């Protein structure tokens, strides 16, 4: 069974930690992680490139992808 088949989870590095994820797209990933699905105040980078919100639905996640999910926090 290939890692991209519908029944096999994908291994991703999310915020530096390895996680097994069922989601196949960036959009489904947010839902699986129970993050706000409208993506308000959130940005995603995959392998050091920002994936704009407009492409979350179609952006396919690949085995070993390095994913950063960020939001605004206190800062000076």
């Amino acid at each position, binding site marked *: 069974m290939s890692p991209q088949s519908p029944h096999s989870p994908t291994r991703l590095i999310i915020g530096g930690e390895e996680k097994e994820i069922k989601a196949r797209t960036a959009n489904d990933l947010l839902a699986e992680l129970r*993050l706000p699905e409208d993506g308000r*105040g959130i940005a995603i980078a995959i392998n050091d490139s920002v994936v704009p919100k407009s492409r979350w639905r179609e952006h396919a996640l690949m085995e070993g992808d390095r994913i950063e999910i960020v939001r*605004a926090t206190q*800062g000076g």
Partner: protein
Amino acid sequence: MEDYLQIADRTFTSRLILGTARYPNPETMLESIAASGTEMVTVAVRRYNLEDHSSESILGLLRSGAFHILPNTAGCYTAKDAVLTAELAREALETNWIKLEVIGDDETLMPDVTELLKAASQLLTLGFIVMPYTNDDPVTARKLADMGCAAVMPLGAPIGSGGGIRNPANITIIRELVSVPILIDAGIGTASHAALAMELGADGILLNTAISCAEHPAQMARAMKLAVEAGRAAYRAGRIPERLMAERSSPIGGMIAHGGKITQGGMIHA
């Protein structure tokens, strides 16, 4: 006469920018922001905490006011990290404004000028409004302004040090060299530092630790507001030249006899 701070296409009445870090609690942060009269606040961009969804987001807290949100690239050591952080900030916050920080080491938190210039150039190409935190070095400030940065943000002293304006003459020189707004970005400890910076010709001041870590943050925020207004007013009023010797303010004509003799230079000889 009206006196506004113009940065890129935006106009501000307040010349204070406030950081949102290190307050004892969110209520004190909001009180201090209100007391300062600021219209622009900075935020950082960090990993979403996937284990804890409960904490209220900083944007949620700030929603009550119509603040212009200025994201920063604090914590970045390379141009590459700073550019990616800026791009993430643009996506998350829907603003192309960025306070660019690229630091060189943990002890000084001073900018790495080589990486800073590289990052500024790339971000300008990508269409950002770039406001770089820089050394109090006139040459670097001029380079940043010349390449198209919307403002330059020289430090007064190291971040969080409260050291004030360690090199006032450099701020004056930067004022002579650049025409974009100069915003003093670090080192302010108390109100007199803020007033001095404004008297030297700075267009504004970014404050965080001086307020958030003061014993009474909201009171310090008010003090800073007054200091910035006073310093700005003094700068615009045009101060007298500094002299080594005294210059009497009361007239000498018509004085009652004192048995002395007034010479041309104003000296009285018994």
